[in-house]
């Protein structure tokens, strides 16, 4: 009809190629980036490096899976990074080796591995509950709400970590069984191995995919993003859905925090600083609309891969960190400029 988007007519093959390129532009750019870097630096395509990138991606993607659904509801979560920092410290503080000299809780009993991780997830979940309740019931805009909780989370984690006479030193000396979750792997052959952390991230991916595509909650998230008033009239409990989305995000940040502490083998109160911006950038690069209602789990993953691969490639190519930031900024804007073509109507 008159206002349906149309592409230039002409060669149908050319047209379908162009259509594919517009739809999957980011994925194409990602593949080109990886291949090009591989040509200049063959080591970039070694199993060791690829697995390393996937491991870095694993933590970030879990954060993005928390942030993404919030963006889908027209919201934003600025507290993500600080919550990751908070939960990383919570997990680390309970998983120091018994014989480590600089323990934050010297008399803490050894606990089964899963307990501290669960506590970290619950800590994130509580922040999410606070965020969600304020957004849903007090109607404070998400930007403001999470700006507040972001600052509060930093205050809380600093209080938690900085205990006289110890000071705000990193929480180190983590138990091997804990760090093994993040750094261990199932060997396949030679250098090829599947890290546990990648398996965890993959499980979260499947969980999120099912949640957004095959559950009522997922459908309601998209409906709220597309038209919150129509959702309300259709019987969607908008407040409850929003609260659940923030709670879910908090829990995912908690998981990400625990995994990050395990990966680093330590945690500080500064861990996670500005990571929410990376998560938002990744989602947006992956085609999630900040005006809500548009975006996929696959897109979020692609966005995170794009960012981590680019960072890694620039390191490989010996580009200075300052230039890395400049490239990252350009990619964020350029990716959205390309992606938005899908939605701009043609005359």
């Amino acid at each position, binding site marked *: 009809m008159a206002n*349906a988007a149309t592409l230039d007519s002409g060669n149908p093959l050319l047209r379908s190629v162009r259509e594919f390129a517009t739809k999957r532009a980011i994925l194409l750019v990602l593949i080109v980036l990886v291949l090009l870097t591989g040509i200049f630096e063959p080591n970039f395509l070694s199993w060791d490096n690829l697995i390393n990138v996937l491991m870095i991606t694993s933590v970030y993607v879990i954060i993005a899976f928390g942030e993404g659904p919030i963006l889908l509801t027209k919201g934003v979560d600025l507290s993500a990074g600080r919550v990751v920092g908070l939960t990383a410290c919570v997990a680390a503080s309970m998983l120091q080796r018994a014989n480590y000299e600089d323990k934050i809780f010297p008399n803490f009993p050894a606990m089964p591995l899963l307990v501290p991780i669960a506590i970290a997830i619950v800590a994130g979940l509580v922040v999410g509950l606070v965020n969600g309740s304020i957004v849903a019931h007090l109607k404070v805009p998400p930007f403001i709400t999470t700006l507040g909780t972001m600052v509060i989370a930093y205050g809380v984690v600093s209080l938690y970590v900085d205990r006289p006479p110890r000071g705000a030193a990193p929480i180190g000396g983590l138990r091997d069984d804990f760090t093994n979750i993040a750094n261990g792997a199932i060997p396949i052959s030679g250098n090829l191995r599947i890290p546990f952390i990648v398996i965890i991230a993959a499980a979260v991916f499947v969980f999120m995919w099912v949640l957004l595509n*095959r559950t009522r909650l997922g459908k309601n998230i*998209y409906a709220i993003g597309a*038209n919150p008033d*129509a959702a309300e009239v*259709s*019987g969607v409990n908008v407040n409850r859905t929003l609260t659940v989305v923030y709670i879910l995000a908090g829990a995912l940040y908690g998981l990400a925090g625990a995994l990050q502490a395990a990966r680093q083998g330590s945690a500080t109160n500064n861990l996670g600083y500005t990571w929410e911006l990376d998560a938002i950038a990744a989602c947006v690069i992956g085609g999630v609309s900040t005006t809500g209602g548009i975006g996929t789990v696959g897109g979020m993953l692609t966005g995170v891969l794009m960012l981590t691969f680019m960072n890694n490639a620039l390191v490989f190519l010996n580009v200075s960190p300052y230039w890395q930031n400049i490239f990252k900024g350009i990619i964020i804007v350029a990716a959205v400029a390309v992606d938005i073509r899908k939605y701009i109507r043609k005359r």
Partner: protein
Amino acid sequence: MAANEYVLELNGISKGFPGVQALDSVSIKVRPGSVHALMGENGAGKSTLMKCLFGIYMPDEGDIVIDGEKLVFANARDALNHGISMIHQELLPILYRSVMENLWLGRFPLRSFGPLKLVNHRKMLADTKAVFEELKMDIDPNTWLVNLSVSKVQLIEIAKAVSRKSRIIIMDEPTSSLTENEVEHLFEIIRNLKSQGIAIIYISHKMEEILKIGDEVSIMRDGKLVGTYPAKELTTDLIISRMVGRDMSNRFPHRDNVPGEVVLRVENFSSPEPKSFQNVSFDLRRGEVLGVSGLVGAQRTELMEAVFGLRPVVSGTVILHDKVRRFRTATEAIREKVALLTEDRRSTGIFPILSVYDNILAANWRNYIRRFLLDLKRGETAVAKSIEALRIKTPSAHTLMQNLSGGNQQKAIFSRWLLLDPEILILDEPTRGIDVGAKYEIYSIIADLAKRGKSIIMISSELPEILGMSDRIMVMCEGRMTGILDGKKAGQEEIMRLSTQFM
């Protein structure tokens, strides 16, 4: 200007989009100082033709001749500069700015202040007052638009067109959200414009209006011009048959529903807002269509949204199937098989960026769950059935809702509610902005539902629709119920009298 018989000639305009020929060699001639009505079903090509004239689309073929001069418009500003203005159906005012700033936006009068050019507010105010005086409009130039009614905002658009010295003003469904009195005021202004030699192209679905205000009527069907006729020679039936290309002797379907026992009783409903509905009581029977009539502002929508649980009440009870049951949220109402089709499709009905599929199932997901997950296949089947049953024109179930025409969007939302198998269906202006053919289909759906024992409340501002479809008619005025009439015996005059009882 006097040299030409026509101020505007559209000669053989064609415009195609991939897969559809939207306009096929359409020629229309418009005389200065006349109201030229343009009619046709949705999708007949009226909007596309006007977009070609207004420079939004480039026609593939054909000429636009204004005052004997062949012109090509590259964009809307070009058209504006050549004396063509368009008043869109959906107005886009800047709500939190003043009337005069809206009026002169993009062309503020300026005043030099050394090297600076500053906005001359004094001149802007004087110019605004001059235009309003010319048009006999009584609007404070300094008030924010958010404080004005839709009709006033529309009048400001007309004032804008006049202030641009437009010779041709296109009005797209200008009365769709106006009250009877406001329509009369608009017509006065249109007559005033005519006397100044301005030509009006008037797009509307409302026959009575066209016959009242139009001088000539061009009717379009399927992208082609059926013909241009003097309004005096036309009747409602003639217009309809030429629009749809078939005889439509009856605008409303035959109904043989038999109202039964009372299923819903609303007693002493009062809003916390004193100006909204107060002390309203009514009941609804099984298999009945209860029409709710009144002027815009009679608080009919507010009342029904409160019954549905979307608005608070300070007093009153709802008795549903002999049980006291007041809904606090839409979710509760839906659980009791009560559905509400809202008045404003765009703001509270559709999810524009989601698929037709998601739109139809939006209120129904709970019925499509198997072992915690959605059973999308069963959903597909249900949606396919709905699309077929209501004859929703869409390329596929996964087309985005925003690409459907208004009538088809409305049918999709209808099927959203029908899938719930509601016992009580509240319809708020169910045929607003929908073409004749789709209207008849929606009337048929309503008649069929009533026959199957469903109870329907239908709010409508169109009297023929109220009279043609209702078993009983409830009339409201300024938040109060002023009468309940028998649908078969009621007349327009009686309804109008009750609608204005407190005015």
